[in-house]
């Protein structure tokens, strides 16, 4: 058979070279970005991205944790930290009987807060999530710390109101005087009128005996 230019060995080689180069490049890029590959693998078993049947929490967590160690980009790191926090802290697929690790979830939220020092919105969101996990874990002092961190970041009045309310409720679980102290601390350290006003509301609702004069006063 007469060889056509297309089928000539020279030509074949010429056409194969880009494919080989692409393959080599692709392999090289894969080797250079193991984080992406690990994230891809993790998503294959993470219920947010896969079908419920494929969900494997332990595998997802393991792969995401490996991805964190594989030098991910800041965006990838943020995304992975959120997924790890939620996988540790929330029962994402009811009925799977997973054991939560609320403290670990809070730790990942703290990592997010450290990562996004310039992004108040994300930092606030992470602080509130951390507070939620700490409250669920009955680590009320830690929850108060996270709520305070969230309140320190400017937000819309409604969010601030809800966060101060959550702080007041958490402090109240421990002691009414701690609630008062927390609210007084807000009033003393915040410039926002909204924050002061909300703190005052909770201050007024504090137990009456905290405001009572000593029995021997003016007797």
């Amino acid at each position, binding site marked *: 058979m007469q060889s056509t230019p297309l089928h000539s060995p020279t030509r074949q080689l010429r056409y194969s070279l880009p494919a080989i180069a692409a393959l080599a490049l692709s392999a090289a890029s894969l080797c250079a970005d193991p984080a992406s590959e690990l994230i891809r693998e993790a998503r294959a078993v993470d219920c947010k991205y896969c079908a419920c049947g494929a969900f494997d929490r332990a595998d997802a967590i393991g792969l995401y944790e490996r991805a964190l160690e594989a030098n991910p980009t800041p965006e990838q790191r943020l995304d992975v930290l959120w997924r790890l926090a939620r996988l540790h802290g929330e029962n994402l697929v009811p009925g799977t009987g997973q054991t939560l690790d609320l403290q670990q979830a809070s730790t990942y939220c703290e990592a997010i807060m450290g990562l996004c020092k310039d992004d108040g919105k994300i930092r606030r969101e992470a602080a509130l999530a951390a507070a939620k996990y700490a409250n669920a874990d009955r680590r*009320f002092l830690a929850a108060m710390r996270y709520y305070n961190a969230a309140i320190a970041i400017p937000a819309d009045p409604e969010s601030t109101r809800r966060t101060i309310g959550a702080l007041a409720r958490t402090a109240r679980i421990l002691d009414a005087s701690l609630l008062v102290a927390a609210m007084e601390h807000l009033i003393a350290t915040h410039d926002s009128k909204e924050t002061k006003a909300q703190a005052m509301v909770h201050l007024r609702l504090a137990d009456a005996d905290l405001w009572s004069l000593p029995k021997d006063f003016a007797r």
Partner: protein
Amino acid sequence: MTATPSSTRSYRAMALLAMAGCAFVSVASAGPADTADPAAPSVELVDEIAGKLLAGLESCRKLGTQAVLDLIDDDLPGLPGSDQQPKRGKVRVPSATTRVDALSLFREYAVEFDRAAKDGTPRTLSPELAGKFAAATRTVCEKGRLARAGILGEGTARVAELCFVLPLLAMPDSQWSAANTKSLPAWMTDGKGLPALERFALCAGRPLTAWSLASAREKAKPPGRVAYLCGATDELLEAGELGAARLTSTAGAEIAEAAGDSGTAAKLHLKTARAFADAGHAEKAIKHLRAVALRFPQLPECATISAGLARHLYDDDQVASARDLARDCLDGRRCGDRKAEFLYLHWLACRRLGETGNADASAREFLAAFPEHAWAADIHLVSGMRAFADGNDDEANRAFKLIRTTFPDARAARRLSEFRNRLTRLELITVDAETGLWRRTE
């Protein structure tokens, strides 16, 4: 179910009557036993009289004192003051020890007593209570028939006399002559019933009568009038006998003021205000002290009255007014020896109003001036709690340690201890056994 004011009053009336009943028992049972009179009235009889005291409300309301007098004349002749002589001479009345006889008193105060029983004027006991006493007199008159028939002896007459006189205690001291009040203890020759009668007189709003009885009881060392009324007011306030406490403190204050003892008078006015406030009439307490303040323009009394006024304003949720009054007294050097009170109240009121800056300034001033004062523990607790809430555990531990070591009996120490126990139970902190310092577990 919560007790209404009227039901509370009637419970109190029952208690009073029970006390009066005790007085009858102790008097009547002691006398005849000593004389071994075969016709002596039994304890059962006296119990019955006391029982009638409790039971005779409706019937006695229909019975005025004139009817009682008619009964006396008809059925109990022989008692001192009776218009008629005893028909059979069986009732002998031991009148030697008394300077005023029961029926004379009864006649003297009958009209006013009737009015009080029907109207229940504020300075008397409730109409119900007064009516019950009227029932008691009727009961005694009925028993008098037995006495006249010779069934009962001289003890009955003593009980009868008491029953005539006790109801009259429901009328205020001011409506009695001083001589009659003074002679009252003579009714209780054996003295065993005096404490009960004294208590009864206090609850009946007869503080001077109570003092008279107390003096008879403590013959060796009779109490001074004002000192007695001060102490009695405190006891009544603690017992929740607020109306009686108010009458007692008012009587004491009047006497003290008349004697020029304005310091004691001012303190008694504070007690009067407390009686109003404890009864749920904060506005009356405030009004009373505002009126009284005009009579005490000088230190230290003006500071005493102002401190009381500030307290009642604060307790009545007039926090800003209380704060302003405290500030005025502090700025105008009208604190006298009550600077600690004004500073403390200013601190508390400012905190309650959300004025943390002013509160902190007052706290610093208080701690500088009164570092050892028991109330300083409250300030340390608040500053420690605020530091703890802020996560500043070192500062919190410093404040908490100060409370533990310097003010172990203060209410702040108790509250701190409860808080610590709660946190350790939740495993949120550990406490170093040696230093007592708190450490968060997380």
